[in-house]
């Protein structure tokens, strides 16, 4: 292509572009800063959280305990005689669960937003979480155990997947999803799964009822290593797949036709993203119940800081989601002495107003999602 004459004419003075808010280097630096900052904050928060509770262990001792466990003679061991066992049987599993589940929820929210082309999509809001909880509760009420210890997770995955596909097919028209349609579809799905959960509560015995209420409120109380060992591989697979498809998710933001003209198999990509979303949500819901709004708040905040490119956004959201849930869980178990608040209640308490704010913004910029 030769365009010398045109180029000299159209080339604007570069002075203007140097005054831009987000040139390439600045945005790259911002990404690195955010991601490192979140990683450091997460590590510190994990040490603090693990040490906090009725039995206090200092962060240094927590660090020392971990180091000794992996064979390094670093840092002090917990001074309290029961410190070591409190850490390893109660605190660490719970901290680990909150980290991976927070990561899973944030990643699931991000994937949904990409698939729906709508930043208001969240597994809790549109009913995927309660869909998964319905499957999970059915295994308890009916005493199913087809897949041994994996049964709950598998059932949660199946019903969560079904809920996601329902929302997907019901709320899309002409290649995009309007905010109103999405939220209304969420109400319908939540109503339906709510009825299912009510039925399970009615059918179940005392223990099953407690379990169902627990799912509806969401809690990390009673997390065990065995649960962590089930949840971790699911979430790792989900996040890795999300990472692999993240570049193609960027192209999806151009609309499905344009994405296809850039070589993306749009339908295939959507199905992969939906299955992964259901996998992540099911992993989270199976043992922690419905924890809403993490998938909404975190990707949104991260997008405001580092922009919408999905690969760095996924990394930041995974770390941010983990940090948020870890912190929320610390609050849940220490805010009221001798009581363990449901974490789902806490995230909704913060997430609800945030959702309000987003809706108002969406309305003000009338269709400004596009």
């Amino acid at each position, binding site marked *: 292509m030769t365009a010398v004459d045109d180029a000299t004419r159209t080339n604007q003075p570069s002075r203007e572009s140097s005054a831009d808010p987000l040139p390439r280097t600045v945005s790259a630096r911002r990404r690195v800063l955010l991601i490192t900052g979140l990683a450091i904050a997460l590590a510190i928060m994990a040490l603090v959280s693990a040490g906090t509770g009725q039995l206090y262990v200092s962060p240094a001792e927590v660090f020392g305990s971990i180091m000794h466990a992996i064979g390094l003679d670093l840092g002090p061991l917990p001074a309290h005689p029961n410190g070591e066992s409190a850490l390893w049987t109660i605190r660490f599993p719970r901290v680990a669960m909150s980290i991976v589940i927070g990561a899973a929820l944030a990643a699931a929210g991000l994937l949904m937003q990409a698939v729906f082309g709508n930043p208001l999509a969240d597994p809790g809001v549109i009913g995927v979480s309660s869909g998964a909880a319905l499957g999970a509760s059915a295994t308890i009420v009916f005493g199913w155990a087809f897949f041994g210890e994996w049964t709950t997770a598998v059932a949660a995955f199946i019903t969560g997947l079904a809920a996601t596909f329902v929302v997907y097919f019901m709320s899309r028209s002409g290649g995009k999803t309007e905010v109103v349609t999405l939220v209304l579809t969420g109400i319908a799905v939540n109503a339906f799964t709510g009825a299912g959960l009510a039925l399970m509560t009615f059918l179940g015995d005392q223990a099953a009822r407690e379990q169902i209420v627990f799912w509806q409120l969401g809690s990390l109380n009673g997390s065990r290593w065995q649960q962590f060992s089930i949840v971790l591989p699911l979430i790792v697979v989900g996040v890795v797949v999300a990472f692999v498809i993240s570049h193609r998710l960027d192209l999806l933001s151009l609309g499905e036709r344009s994405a296809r003209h*850039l070589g993306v198999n749009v339908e295939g990509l959507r199905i992969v993203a939906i299955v992964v979303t259901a996998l992540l949500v099911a992993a989270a819901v199976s043992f922690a119940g419905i924890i809403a709004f993490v998938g909404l708040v975190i990707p949104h905040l991260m997008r405001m800081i580092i922009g919408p490119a999905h690969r760095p956004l996924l990394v930041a959201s995974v770390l941010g989601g983990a940090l948020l849930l870890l912190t929320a869980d610390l609050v849940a178990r220490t805010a009221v002495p001798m009581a363990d608040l449901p974490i789902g209640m806490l995230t909704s308490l913060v997430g609800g107003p945030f959702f309000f704010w987003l809706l108002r913004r969406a309305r003000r910029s009338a269709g400004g999602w596009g």
Partner: protein
Amino acid sequence: MRGASVALDARGVSVEIDGRQILADASIRVFSGEIVALIGPNGAGKSTLLAALTGDQPRTSGTIEIAARPLDDWKLKELAQQRAVLLQENGVFFPFTVEQVVEMGRAPWQRTPLDHDDEEAVDEAIRLTDIERFRHRQVPSLSGGERARSAFARVLAQRTGILLLDEPTAALDLRHQEDVLRLARQRAHAGDAVIVVLHDLNLAAAYADRIALLSSGRIVAQGSPREVLTVERISDVYAQPVEVITHPQTGATIILPVREELSVSRTNDHSLPRTTARSRIALPRKASS
């Protein structure tokens, strides 16, 4: 210009939507190195034809070949290396910057030897489309015309031998309309095939090597601008009397709608005070209605 090979060959393409014939038996062949403009009144099937050529619109019959290979046999990624498409809607769901959107045009070349050119291709496309000034701004914050130019830059950055452009000038001001078609012209000179849907007949006359005129879902005329843009045909197809004038200096074809009443009433406007001029124009209109 390279040797003129057939870049795109469509034969007997028909499209039916909900039992309604939108496009009937359209055949068009586009060679590398030429610009073919699709023109016609609203609802004539221009965009449907373009959508059928891109594969977005399933066809009920007919064959389409891209670079001598049936459209449906192409892998999506390989096709994206052959052919870039600019649609009318070019909104972006999330607040990507203009630069990021233009970079997306390089996606088909990822993990190919040509991905070394990415940065250069992006910079060039941004320079050519005159969007350097808002390169780092977020696309949703731009005006319609600025968004359209960003989308066009993305298509240029894709560096394909075939360009399909659906009304690329619709949201643009005079200068940028000319820019877009001038760039299309340059690409054609370099050997690319360009198919462009246009509303402005004068732009089509000035830039297209060939024009296909659509009316009610059929290609009713196809040929050089001079052959297609005749007074009778345009007046008939658009149901609007037109004049076809040859520019006295350049010899370019100019199409003007016939506006008899206005031209009479405006004869002496320059010498009249504003208010008088307005009333003089208004009077004959009232009389005629």
